[in-house]
């Protein structure tokens, strides 16, 4: 087990350090890259817990898609760092307040588990032994039965967000030249060219 413990501390340590660097790095692109490092280490922690399915999904969804778009946007921004630093003190109280609330809530969750250990089992469903089913199957078994409404609700939230994004960005530009493949295919020699008889020395 000693190797697992060492691996845990390495992953956890790097994750925390990377998380700190996300807010400490001067360059926003570096921040995003540190965020990706933090995701990676979180995936490593999942693997250590035997949840390799979650680890891979974390990498595919967050690192492979979400962070790419993040990086995409951040790379194109031209940020004035001095201006960014100026507002720091102004926003600090709000930031500190949010941090404090999150900290309190985390303490509440962890505290409840310690005070009343039976609470954790209220929401839990029986976990089949790892030797019998892979953890993709184990998740599938509860996700589409016990949690099917939550699953559907999450799907609806994402659908609404997606339609919202499309509606916000969809504009018809009348002067934009767009390729219309049916129009191109429907063209014939008769509609495409016009043959003119040009007399010598006359021009058109």
């Amino acid at each position: 087990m000693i190797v697992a413990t060492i691996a845990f501390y390495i992953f956890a340590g790097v994750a925390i350090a990377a998380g700190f660097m996300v807010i400490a790095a001067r360059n926003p692109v570096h921040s995003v890259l540190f965020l990706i490092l933090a995701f990676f280490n979180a995936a490593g922690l999942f693997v250590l817990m035997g949840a390799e399915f979650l680890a891979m999904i974390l990498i595919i969804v967050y690192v492979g898609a979400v962070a790419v778009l993040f990086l995409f946007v951040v790379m194109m921004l031209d940020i004035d760092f001095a201006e960014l630093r100026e507002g720091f003190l102004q926003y600090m109280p709000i930031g500190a307040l949010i941090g404090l609330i999150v900290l309190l809530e985390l303490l509440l969750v962890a505290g409840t588990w310690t005070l009343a250990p039976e609470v954790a089992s209220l929401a839990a469903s029986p976990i089949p032994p790892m030797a019998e089913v892979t953890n993709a199957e184990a998740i599938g078994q509860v996700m589409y039965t016990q949690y099917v409404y939550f699953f559907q609700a999450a799907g609806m939230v994402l659908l609404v967000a997606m339609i919202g994004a499309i509606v916000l960005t969809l504009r018809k530009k009348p002067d934009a030249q767009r390729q219309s493949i049916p129009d191109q295919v429907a063209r014939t020699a008769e509609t495409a060219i016009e043959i003119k008889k040009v007399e010598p020395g006359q021009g058109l």
Partner: protein
Amino acid sequence: MAELWTTYGFPLFIIVGQSLGVLVGLLLFTAYILYADRKIFAAVQMRRGPNVVGPWGLLQSFADLTKFLFKEAIIPSSANKGIFLLAPVITATLALSAWAVIPFDDGWVVADLNVGLLYVLAFSSLGVYGIMMGGWASNSKYSFMGALRCAAQMVSYEVSLGFIVVSVLMTAGSLNLSDIVRAQDTSAGLFGWYWLIHFPAFVIFFISAIAETNRPPFDLPEAESELVAGYATEYSSTPFLLFFLGEFVAINLMAAMVTILFLGGWLPPFDWGPLHAVPGVIWFVLKVCFVFFLFAMVRAYVPRYRYDQLMRLGWKVFLPLSLGWVVVTAGVLVAFDLAP
């Protein structure tokens, strides 16, 4: 101490040995795939291709390797040095590490993961970071344009790749790559492999794989007629070599994925005695070479896409088709009670 050696030391030793074996084999294979790519391209254009270094030019790739290694590495003065040098290393490392879960024969796999399919998908989708970091860190317009195109392109085509993978895994009932190959082992041989029952998905996967690895006709990130060399404009010497290597290893990986998912991996094409006597790894390599030959022919024949056509193909054609295929597959599996 002796216990520590038997529990960790010895397995570690074996894993390192296996990884080195795969690495050396893969790099040699890549060297000859590069040579084959140039020879095929030349044959299509009625040229001779590389034929000077070694007999029939067989050592050309090694001459190129030496050339790249001994050139001067130039770092642009306004580049972001750390990320500029990190980017090619990341590209090459990610492309190579995905091979850990590829089964070359029954049981010939470095890491027999239960989620092998997702692992490959994850690592091939991470390939975009090397290119984006390289393009941004070069601090050049062409590089940056290449990086932006690459990001949009790879994210788009991953979606359809992912959906096709879902329909294959529903039919096989496993995310383990070895199990997916075993599920194709029927008495029908060649016709029991998934290319036949998943034919539309096979075609979409093949095209998306080309787009995902930025091969022509989808090589918009390095379109030399528009962007000089795209994200690789400022790279030279060993960093460029690493980019190049990463790209070709990723192409081989995609050929291996097509082989495993649709062409029955290490299985012989007919259920006939003497064919079973041939080692599975030979079948596997032959199939990978065949798929690569198709990639090379596509590169030689098809002109480069325009960027809006590329996006249209990804989002408006492949995404609905592959999503529809998932629904059809699931429907058939449930309706006829075929789900494993």
